[in-house]
């Protein structure tokens, strides 16, 4: 630290980390292909169903990862957008006879539109208060799903038998659609957060004033991210409706918003992969902990607390720290490597 003159740009070292395609890219491509093709080599319908559950939860969790993990907007009302996606798609198809694909697009656009409209007043509040505001939003939507029974079917919900509305061909291939959408959602979030945009998100999350001074349009990015988050949640809702073939209010309540939040915490709040890892844990956890019987919920809650305390980066963060720790140890063992 004794610079008294500025060095010229010509002396630049030419090593680069960013921008160049890292080997990770090809791993991601391969993993994506594997996920899409999963239905071809998983024979067990049960396992396939769980994988679809994981995929739908993952998409929902990716929406929260983007909103919470990358831009620091705590949403306890993500189930509201999930509900808008599911119900819009189902109502358009069953009551108005809109073709499936068009209904899906409209549902997703509506989810985004709602998120956009909500984000305008919500931009005024941050942190804890944002959590309370989105909590209120989620509760309002949950109540309306029951009270607007002539439209939503109330607690009886609306049935949407797959073969009838998707056709047999598409119904049979629905698992591919679900997993394909997960891959698409992953790449969307990845692309959005991979390069400068992702760093800008972290900047505005950790220091909004500092980010604004660096020319980052904080409010605009927050709104756009919230909107994309709403769209992703609505996408998950669309898939859920066809996966379950019925929509009822119990699937879109406060518990669902909390469940997504737990997925994101378990996997790792600012990790794209974390959303998927968290969803795997949430879906398969009851399987693994079946021996606990009724103590399962308690143990699960304690595990989440332990993660918050000891692995604030979630499972993915923990694994990364472990490996970078290993790498560091290796460096100290071979000092000649570290120049």
């Amino acid at each position, binding site marked *: *630290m*004794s*610079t*008294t*003159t*500025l*060095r*010229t*740009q010509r*002396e*630049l*070292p030419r090593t*680069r*980390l*960013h*921008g*160049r*395609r890292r080997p990770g890219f090809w791993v991601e491509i391969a993993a994506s292909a594997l996920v899409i093709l999963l239905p071809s080599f998983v024979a067990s319908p049960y396992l396939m169903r769980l994988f679809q559950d994981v995929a739908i939860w993952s998409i929902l969790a990716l929406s929260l990862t983007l909103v919470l993990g990358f831009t620091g907007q705590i949403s306890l009302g993500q189930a509201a957008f999930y509900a808008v996606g599911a119900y819009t798609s189902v109502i358009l198809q069953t009551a108005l006879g809109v073709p499936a694909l068009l209904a899906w697009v409209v549902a997703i656009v509506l989810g985004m539109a709602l998120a956009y409209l909500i984000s305008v007043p919500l931009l005024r509040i941050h942190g804890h208060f944002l959590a309370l505001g989105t909590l209120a939003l989620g509760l309002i939507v949950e109540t309306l799903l029951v009270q607007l029974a002539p439209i939503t079917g109330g607690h009886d919900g609306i049935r949407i038998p797959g073969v009838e509305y998707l056709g047999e061909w598409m119904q049979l291939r629905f698992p591919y659609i679900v997993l394909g959408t997960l891959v698409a959602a992953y*790449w*969307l979030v990845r*692309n*959005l957060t*991979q*390069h*400068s*945009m992702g*760093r*800008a998100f*972290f*900047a505005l*999350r*950790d*220091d909004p*004033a*500092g*980010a*604004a*001074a*660096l*020319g*980052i*349009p*904080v409010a605009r*990015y927050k709104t*756009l991210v919230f909107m*994309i988050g709403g769209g992703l949640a609505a996408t998950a809702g669309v898939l859920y409706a066809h996966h379950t073939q019925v929509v009822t209010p119990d699937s879109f309540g406060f518990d669902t918003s909390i469940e997504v939040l737990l997925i994101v915490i378990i996997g790792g709040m*600012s990790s794209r992969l974390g959303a998927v890892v968290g969803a795997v844990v949430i879906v398969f956890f009851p399987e693994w902990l079946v021996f606990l019987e009724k103590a399962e919920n308690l143990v699960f809650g304690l595990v989440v607390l332990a993660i918050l305390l000891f692995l604030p980066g979630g499972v993915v963060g923990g694994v990364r720290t472990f490996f970078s720790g290993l790498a560091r140890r290796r460096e100290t063992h071979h000092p000649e490597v570290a120049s």
Partner: protein
Amino acid sequence: MSLIVENVTKRFGGNTALADVSFEVEAGALTALIGPNGAGKTTMFNCIAGLHRPTEGKVSLDGRDITGLAPAKILDAGIARTFQLVRSFRELTVLETVMVAGHWRSGQSFWNSILASPGTRRSDERLEEEARGTLHALGLESLADKRVHELPYGQQRLIEIAKALMTGAKTLLLDEPAAGLHPEEALALRGLLAALRERGTTILLVEHNMPFVLSIADHVVVLEFGHKIADGSAAEIAKDQRVIDSYLGKEEDVA
């Protein structure tokens, strides 16, 4: 071609924080804004940086009125600022932190990021190259992969300056860059500022540390209780009796 502050008054409720202050920051020169605590330095700084809108008066850069522009727009006008309290972007390395400062002019937009247009990757390569260049120029390249909050305070300050440089702005507003630095670090900072000035960067420095300012500034503006009490070259200010009184009085209070 310079940053001009004309008759700026700022009132908060009934309190007048700045009363009719005017001065000019000459292009390519290092101007310092000094004064004891509560003199209105920070308010003045915020009025220029867009955090406060002056109650009266005008701020202009190269003839363009920039009064009350939002912080993000001030940068468009060509002014970058640093913060006194460094708040780290926890997830980012030093290199990435500096790259963030180039985001606004990188051409990467929300929608073309989602579509992963090839330009995004190229633009990122450019950003990295420039950020490495900036770190290198400040002699900080060895810190590239560290996290800002892991660094000692002095280095964090330098990274604030690296960020400001990386924005590409020609005018820098520095908020007390020397506060809390060891003498050795302050010396390095002085060298850096001198080098920047030589490169033609316009600098407005808000500083509390009188000797530091006098050792480096081309031009000094002194505020007290919201009024400008002196304005001149470093040498003139050093001899100004009002400035000396004001400073000595204040130092006693603090001690």
